[in-house]
């Protein structure tokens, strides 16, 4: 099919970033980041299945401050993707599509994902996480 030199509609770069568009692309980026991060989970389980020696090597990395920071970032990406995913499910039900609701739910997603991630880590540490 030949498209010729038809004019193209203005694309992303002509628009000022807004809450709606930023959260939308962040949703996709965090989804991909979470997928890549699943390598860590599999690596962790493989290490545990292959024995104490190799597990301790992996754990000395994951348990270091850098490892924990990486794990925290990964879980934050995961929880953001989850919260915005719930927002999408709400939209799929045909609700909350007007602009004020979209802005309100967008801000809520940012706040809730940060609080939820922090809360789960604090909870884990307070009930005996090392």
């Amino acid at each position, binding site marked *: 099919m030949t498209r010729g030199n038809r004019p193209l509609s203005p694309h992303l770069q002509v628009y000022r970033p807004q809450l709606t568009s930023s959260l939308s692309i962040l949703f*996709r980026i965090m*989804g*991909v980041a*979470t*997928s890549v991060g*699943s*390598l860590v*989970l*599999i690596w962790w*389980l*493989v290490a*545990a*299945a292959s024995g*104490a020696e190799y*597990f*301790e090597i992996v*754990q000395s990395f*994951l*348990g270091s401050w850098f*490892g*924990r920071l990486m*794990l925290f970032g*990964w*879980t934050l990406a*995961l*929880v953001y993707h*989850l919260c915005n*995913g*719930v927002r999408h*499910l709400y939209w*799929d039900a045909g609700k909350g599509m007007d602009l004020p609701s979209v802005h309100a739910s967008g801000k809520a997603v940012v706040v809730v994902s940060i609080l*939820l*991630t922090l809360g*789960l*880590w604090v*909870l*884990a*540490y307070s*009930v*005996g*996480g*090392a």
Partner: protein
Amino acid sequence: MSLRSPLARVRGLGSAREGSSHWWAQRLTSLALVPLVLWFVFSVAMMAGADYVEFIDWVHSPVVAGLLVLLISVGLLHSNQGMQVVIEDYIHGEFCKVVALFLSQSVHIVLGLTGVLSVLMILFRG
């Protein structure tokens, strides 16, 4: 130059073929992942500093092992479908797109099997 009408060309292609089942599967897996991921984030924080015995003890329970198997399989299913959409959106050359889709799907299958088998090994080895 094709003599087929535009309708004949698109019939059986695109969302008319399997788009809705892909869409539904993505929503259903996302629903299942809500509780699984919340449990998992908590567990990651719990296990970040665990030693070998603590980690094995944790996996070595039918509930935890079951939830891990569910998380890995449903999560990678969801990830596979998501990555498929991302690849289809951004890779335009037909050859590159098909290769990328094949690689992505293969990696997801290998990761899923590796993860599930690791969990089962820990569970049954005792």
